[in-house]
């Protein structure tokens, strides 16, 4: 097995970049990553994007982005796997390097969510769900998560207020993250009293609609890269039932259980970036990962178990999808940028210090697919 090293990282602060196209955002992140790695060319560019095909709109995006980056000599591959597109792109890059088909690969994740008003954008986002099943109805981006959230609160008798500590923690972390969209603190009380998006989900339980791009350069360890930051140890994936109504227990994220098993468990993980598009998914993931008992994750979060001074792995030092932001196909690449810098000791945001092992986890929709990557310090 060839070692695969992250050698360059770049990220654009997530926000409403009305003045910047998908290509401009991608260039900002990619050029920063290439500069950091100290290289000016790559063998492959793998572009992760999901909504660009509807928002911008542009097909065959990877080739257009690669040529606009000035990397016309490179080969280009586009990857669309919904909210897990970024880790799918990492999987492709990792395989190219391990198979020695490439020595150096640039992964760029980019998406815009603000080219249209929110109503049309919700129409696009609902297509992350199964368009032949639940997304036949106007479920929007939050409808299915809301059904699961109410089921969870009812079944486990969890107080709504207890779950609100997750978004509050995310905002506390995002305040310290230079590329986070929402860099301000909120109280758990404000989450509960927020504007309803799809009850019991309020605006403050949900990711903001923002544009972003993030990029990483990956190189083979045996080629002695100039700027080694962290090692990619494993990249895995699993698909689950297409919709939660097909699961025996709609609250069981079976794709997360499978991907965590495939990647070798969470033992030794010091820091992780998990997928909290909506508060309920963070809670269900923590339980599916075996880090909390069923119905108990909100309490652990509220007690500070996953916080900077807690005993569990540090959760989402970036501020998560909730507060760093969630430009769909780009999000997983942000996670790799953040975790690689934490492991390299070059992260200016929240961290404990001395982190050795990091996990990135993402799901699409309500768990129709799940992906994970393990990184370790050099």
């Amino acid at each position, binding site marked *: 097995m060839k070692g695969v090293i992250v050698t360059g990282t770049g990220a654009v602060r997530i926000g409403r970049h009305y003045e910047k196209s998908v290509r401009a955002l991608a260039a900002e992140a990619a050029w920063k990553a290439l500069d950091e790695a100290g290289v000016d060319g790559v063998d492959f560019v793998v572009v992760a994007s999901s909504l660009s095909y509807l928002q911008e709109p542009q097909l065959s995006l990877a080739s257009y982005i690669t040529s606009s980056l000035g990397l016309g000599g490179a080969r280009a591959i586009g990857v669309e796997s919904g909210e897990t597109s970024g880790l799918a792109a990492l999987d492709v890059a990792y395989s190219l390097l391990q198979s020695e088909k490439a020595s150096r690969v640039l992964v760029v994740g980019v998406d815009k969510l603000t080219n249209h008003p929110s109503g*049309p954008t919700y129409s696009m986002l609902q297509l992350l769900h199964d368009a032949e099943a639940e997304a036949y109805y106007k479920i929007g*981006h*939050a409808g299915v998560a809301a*059904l699961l959230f109410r089921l969870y609160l009812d079944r486990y008798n969890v107080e709504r207020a207890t779950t609100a500590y997750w978004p509050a923690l995310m905002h506390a972390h995002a305040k310290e993250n230079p590329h986070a969209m929402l860099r301000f603190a909120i109280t758990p009380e404000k989450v509960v009293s927020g504007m309803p998006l799809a009850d019991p*989900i309020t605006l403050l339980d949900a990711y903001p609609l923002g544009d972003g791009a993030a990029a990483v350069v990956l190189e083979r360890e045996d080629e002695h890269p100039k700027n080694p930051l962290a090692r990619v140890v494993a990249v895995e994936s699993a698909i689950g039932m297409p*919709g939660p109504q*097909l699961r025996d227990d709609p609250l069981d994220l079976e794709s997360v259980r499978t991907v965590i098993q495939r990647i070798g468990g969470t033992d030794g993980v010091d820091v992780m970036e998990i997928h909290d598009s909506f508060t309920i998914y963070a809670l269900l993931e923590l339980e599916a990962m075996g880090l909390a008992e069923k119905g108990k994750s909100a309490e652990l979060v509220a007690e500070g178990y996953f916080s900077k001074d807690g005993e569990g792995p540090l959760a989402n030092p970036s501020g998560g999808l909730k507060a760093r932001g969630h430009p769909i196909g780009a999000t997983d690449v942000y996670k790799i940028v953040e975790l690689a810098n934490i492991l390299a000791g070059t992260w200016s945001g929240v961290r404990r210090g001395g982190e050795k092992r990091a996990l990135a986890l993402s799901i699409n929709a309500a768990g129709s697919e799940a992906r994970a990557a393990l990184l370790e310090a050099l």
Partner: protein
Amino acid sequence: MNGVGAGSLPRWWRNRIPRYRLVGAKCKVCGRIHYPPREACPYCGSRDLEIVPLPRRGKLLSYTHVFSVPGDNRLSTPIILGLVDLGSAKVIAELTDVLPEELPNVKEVEAVVRKVEEQGGNGVIGYAIKFRPVLQATPGGQG
């Protein structure tokens, strides 16, 4: 860009039977039923499926009012969604004929065919199954 399904006449047409009649697919290998019918059984992968009618009444497991409604038409805000357990299969669908204050007490729902889409370039008016509260109270039951 309007709601999902808008504009495509062939798509509405090919979905008309499961959408109007509430039929699922039963796997002849593992015996499990799913909705709407898929190409293969999502539980065991078998391609040996038969179309079966689903029960038209079920239990309401969860619900939500979606205010972040897709599309440009805000007149229909909010959309009420439910997770319904029909016994042999679970379904996510719209709820209808119910007031917000009634919802917490709704336990049983039944299927009706209603309009879900009235837009799109081809003037498609789409119908599908929705669920409404079971109207008549069961004598001696809890309503």
